[in-house]
């Protein structure tokens, strides 16, 4: 009986690694034991979502294992449709599925916002993932699978090299990442909507050639996953499910409000350290956040950060001499979030639901954003009086810069043609991009609340005239 390593997972039940008979799985089991991978235990998949859904505390480690498990299902589809099946490429893609998230920083995407604002290269999870896969402990384990294996895996994770059906397992409209996180996030959050028919989708997945290009120039064809004609309704639910998760989970107003405070907090802390004012932060010079702020291009400093490091720092920063930092830290620690004004809801209230995502509403939002930003430009030592959140999401994942068949969900018709799901589903065809525009303010700052509402009301009134 070959030795199995088994992990119990709330979503997939058993995720097994055949460490005796399958060379790849033996190596991947060791990759899981490395420090960079174990660090993912301390990075939550959904950041601050447990402020709203207390059960949503699952880690990126568990998600990564789930992506690997799902990738094996997808690879079975590839094996069925691809001749000759290239097992070396399959191994690279399965390994990429396991380590694709290894570079995520504390609170993932919110940390990237801090990086964008302050120009911190290693706040970018894609760059950190690539660096960790190409060198260090993970690369050392991968070496057993060939001298170029780590680089091949890194290329798949970062989207370099030839696109193929093997890389589609990691990045496509039906990649293992989305197929895991949609189901896992729903399960752990405890919501009952957004369910997908996973087994039926997998049963109906096929491989086909689709065209791709850059602007008006054709580049030929590439293999990707498509769905058979019996999976139209499952595909519809797959698209709609994500669309329901945006407003209810991923962009919940309290979760986003916490992220906004976190971004201000970290930006303030890093700026103080950079300015030579570490003593005002309440953090010791040896704290990982201080070390990262001083040496942000050092990969060791970057991976010393995780969610628990920041949670642990909150009680120290709450005692900071810098009042702005102390206030923000206390707010986050005690979940005393800013109040939210949803501008598009205000527009819907005044102009009707359809108007809230209209081009005129977009114009109104752009003006309001500028006016509020100009008004709330923070004073040196005070917390910002207004925090703005603006997002837009389309139903399909962006795969290329130019829109084409790779950027849509393709259904194979009974006649053997490929058509976009939107041509077969009226519901999907009617979907518009999800847009949000919110302004957050301190609930005790009545002046700020009144000013923000005054700006919003005045601009909406201007539209009515």
């Amino acid at each position, binding site marked *: 009986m070959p030795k199995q390593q088994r992990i119990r997972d709330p979503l997939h039940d058993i995720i097994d690694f055949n460490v005796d008979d399958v060379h790849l799985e033996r190596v991947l089991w060791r990759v899981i034991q490395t420090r960079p991978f174990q660090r993912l235990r301390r990075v939550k998949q959904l950041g601050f979502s447990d402020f709203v859904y207390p059960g949503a505390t699952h880690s990126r480690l568990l998600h990564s294992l789930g992506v690997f498990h799902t990738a094996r299902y997808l690879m079975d589809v590839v094996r069925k449709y691809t001749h000759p099946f290239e097992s070396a490429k399959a191994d690279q893609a399965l390994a990429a599925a396991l380590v694709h998230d290894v570079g995520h920083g504390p609170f993932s995407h919110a940390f990237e916002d801090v990086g*964008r604002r302050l120009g911190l290269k290693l706040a*970018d999870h894609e*760059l950190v993932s690539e660096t960790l896969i190409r060198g260090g402990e993970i690369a050392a384990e991968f070496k057993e699978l060939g001298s170029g294996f780590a680089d091949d895996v890194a*290329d798949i994770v*970062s*989207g*370099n*090299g*030839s*696109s193929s059906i093997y890389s589609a397992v990691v990045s496509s409209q039906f990649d293992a990442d989305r197929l895991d996180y949609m189901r896992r996030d729903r399960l752990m959050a405890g919501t009952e909507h957004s369910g997908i028919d996973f087994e039926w989708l997998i049963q109906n997945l096929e491989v086909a050639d*689709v*065209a*791709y*290009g*850059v*602007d*008006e*120039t*054709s*580049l*030929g064809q590439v293999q990707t996953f498509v769905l058979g004609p019996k999976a139209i309704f499952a595909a519809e639910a797959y698209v709609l499910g994500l669309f329901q998760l945006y407003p209810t989970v991923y962009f919940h107003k309290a979760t986003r409000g916490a992220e906004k405070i976190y971004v201000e907090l970290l930006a303030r802390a890093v700026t103080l350290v950079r300015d030579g004012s570490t003593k005002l932060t309440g953090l010791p010079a040896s704290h990982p956040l201080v070390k990262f702020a001083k040496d942000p291009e050092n990969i060791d400093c970057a991976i010393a950060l995780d969610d628990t490091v920041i949670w642990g720092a909150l009680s120290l920063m709450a005692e900071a001499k810098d009042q702005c930092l102390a206030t923000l830290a206390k707010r986050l620690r005690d979940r005393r979030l800013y109040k939210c004004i949803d501008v598009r809801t205000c527009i819907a209230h005044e102009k009707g639901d359809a108007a809230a995502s209209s*081009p005129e509403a*977009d*114009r109104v939002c*752009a*003006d309001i*954003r*500028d006016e509020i*930003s*100009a008004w709330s430009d923070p004073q040196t030592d005070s917390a910002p009086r207004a925090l703005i959140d603006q997002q*837009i999401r389309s139903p399909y994942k962006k795969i*290329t*810069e*130019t*829109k*084409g*068949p790779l950027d849509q969900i393709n259904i194979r018709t009974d006649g053997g043609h490929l058509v976009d799901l939107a041509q077969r589903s009226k519901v999907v065809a009617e979907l518009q991009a999800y847009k949000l525009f919110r302004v957050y303010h301190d609930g005790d700052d009545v002046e700020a609340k009144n000013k923000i509402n005054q700006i919003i009301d005045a601009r909406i009134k201007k539209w009515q005239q």
Partner: protein
Amino acid sequence: MAAVEEARRAAAIVRDAGGRVVGRTRFQKMAFILEAAGLGSGFPFKYKHYGPYSEELSNASRTAAILGLLNETESPASWGGLFSTFEVDMPPDSTIPESRRRIAHETASADAVALELAATALFLFLARIAPSDAWSETGRRKPEKAANGRLDQARALYERIRQIQTPTPLPRLE
């Protein structure tokens, strides 16, 4: 930067390219090269597998369209995808450096794939990802796009752009 100001800057890139830019890739890569040459509009760029890309520029062009500063129309490409055409109806700005206009025109009329390759090589060099072999690294990262002589086309395009005198001289990429 304020949303309306960002939108104006995005539209100004199209204006300086002659009022019309075909393709999102051309638009993005043109803006990146202008940025690298010290003639840009302040948009930050990040490496994506389709080359240097600015989410901020993408958002700004969307806002510009909303504000009526720029018109984006989508047309079907012969290969089955959709390509965008960006147009503005703005008078030329005489204060704009001639070098900015020349780069914008050169890139607007370039082959989109060659331009993506050239911008990618430049990004890899400037970001110190491939400081000594930016072209070969570009070819390795984008084998299909670099095939059929397109990498040579990209080199030639880049050399033409590099001959234009700019506030920040564009580096030799060897």
